[in-house]
């Protein structure tokens, strides 16, 4: 192998794929035929492939065609001189990283400075010795190789980034599709049965939320309602929630238990949804409303949010201390019972609505949430819920919630007879 046969540096060449005998290409741009021939002969003897151009314009064309590893250009040339050639190379996106040796018969500092400013990388005196020419050419080729390696790496990084962006977009599209599906499982707002209004607002902290709820007619006389809250956030929590939601479908529960008795539903859910190995679990509140009488039977598995708002008295929480699902496989969940009258409202909520902090770090909290519900009595059900979200956002001075936030409201709008006949 010739001593100057270098590792590959040519355009678009992969160093690992090229033969070891790759010979660097040097473009020599010189208008003086004798000087050009003499320098070309020297370089050829040193083992390089030499490309020759007789002026700057021809040199530019050849450089674009051949992408040489190094360009040696004479300063003084008619039509396009060396520094102008350097400027043209630096402006050309394809050539701008080329290594250029500016050849001159002068070595005045001002001239050198001008050459560097206009785009040259180094200088070569026309009177240089064989040793100096060898050293400067080798240095230029070393830099050229490093620059091209950088360009290759940068191009690979750019490709990887584009690939990652495409994957990210794909994943986000999937997440939005999954979120739309989960949203489609939520009960339609309006009137699930005659005499009862339903309104809700739901703001997942990420694209997919882990808080879900349901309101559904069990038979002509019963309405079942629940809210569940999966610990954690994101896709894993959403998937676990969808699984529990499937379990809580009326057909499934009626087949398993024979009724939507909250105590039995929680007992069965507790058995089937244990605490996961990484500490994930659910809280769940389940109620069953007897439409003819307005009697609401309910039970909670550690769920902190069910609030009763009655026309004549302040709102009160319908909760008691109990284990979330999966904390204790032998846990029993006791039922409580109240009677809802016309005008009464029941709100099921996740803690994400009131566990928001002000910029100073103070929690909004359950009491302030309760106050917005009390103050919302003169408003419509949906307006009351909207005002609670608005107050929470105002408190944290941010639109998005750090945790999933859900508030579901039902209102007894008609008398029991109407509900029964509806």
């Amino acid at each position: 192998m010739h001593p100057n046969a270098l590792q590959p540096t040519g355009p678009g060449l992969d160093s690992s794929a090229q033969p070891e005998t790759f010979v660097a290409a040097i473009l020599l741009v010189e208008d003086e035929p004798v000087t050009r021939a003499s320098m070309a002969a020297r370089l050829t003897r040193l083992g390089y492939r030499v490309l020759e151009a007789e002026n700057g314009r021809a040199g530019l064309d050849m450089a674009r065609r051949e992408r040489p590893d190094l360009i040696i250009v004479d300063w003084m040339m008619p039509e396009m001189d060396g520094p102008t050639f350097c400027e043209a190379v630096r402006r050309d996106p394809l050539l701008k990283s080329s290594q250029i040796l500016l050849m001159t018969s002068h070595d005045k500092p001002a001239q050198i400075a001008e050459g560097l400013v206009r785009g040259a990388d180094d200088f070569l005196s026309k009177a240089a010795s064989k040793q100096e020419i060898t050293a400067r050419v080798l240095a230029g080729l070393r830099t050229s190789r490093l620059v091209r390696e950088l360009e290759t790496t940068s191009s690979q990084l750019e490709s990887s980034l584009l690939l990652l962006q495409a994957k990210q977009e794909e994943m986000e599209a999937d997440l939005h599709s999954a979120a739309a599906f989960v949203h489609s499982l939520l009960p339609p707002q309006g009137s699930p049965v005659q005499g009862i209004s339903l309104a809700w607002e739901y703001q997942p902290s990420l694209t997919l939320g882990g808080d879900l709820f349901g309101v559904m007619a069990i038979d002509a006389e019963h309405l079942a309602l629940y809210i569940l809250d999966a610990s954690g956030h994101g896709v894993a929590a959403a998937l676990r929630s969808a699984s529990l939601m499937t379990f809580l479908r009326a057909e499934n529960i009626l087949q398993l238990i024979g009724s939507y008795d909250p105590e039995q539903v929680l007992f069965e859910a507790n058995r089937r949804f244990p605490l996961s190995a990484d500490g994930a679990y659910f809280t769940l509140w389940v109620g069953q409303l007897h439409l003819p009488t307005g009697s609401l039977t309910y039970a909670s598995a550690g769920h902190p949010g069910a609030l009763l708002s009655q026309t004549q008295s302040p709102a009160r929480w319908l909760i008691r201390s109990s284990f979330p699902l999966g904390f204790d496989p032998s846990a029993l969940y006791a039922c409580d019972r109240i009677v809802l009258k016309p005008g009464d409202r029941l709100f099921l909520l996740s803690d994400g609505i009131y566990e928001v902090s002000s910029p100073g770090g103070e929690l909004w909290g359950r009491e302030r949430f309760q106050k917005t519900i009390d103050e919302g009595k003169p408003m419509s059900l949906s307006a009351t819920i909207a005002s609670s979200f608005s107050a929470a956002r105002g408190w944290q001075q941010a639109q998005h919630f750090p945790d999933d936030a859900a508030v579901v409201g039902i209102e007894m709008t008609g008398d029991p007879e109407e509900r029964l006949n509806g």
Partner: protein
Amino acid sequence: MKIKERILPQGIILDLEGDLTYANQAAFKVAVEKAKQAGCRHLIVNMEQVRFVDSAGLGLLVLVSQSFKRLQAQVSMLKPQNYVREIMSLANIPKMIPIYENEQDALIALAA
């Protein structure tokens, strides 16, 4: 979250400072694992400087309690702040993880 470990003859006390939440539970997991590796029989989690525990933090505490029970070891908590105490109470946590108002009571109860 900042965690300071204090090793006593009767067990290990973890002084927690900050929120115990989904976002910053890693430090707590590491501290607990270290205590387990050290053969700790009594782990006391000092909650006095914990302002907030979310559902994930709660799950983690229960998981830790259960894993210590499997090793015939115990976990207890010290002085949770009011809001944290309320969250614990709603989820019935004191039935699983005893809460004490001072270190002395916790150490005496653990020794009993």
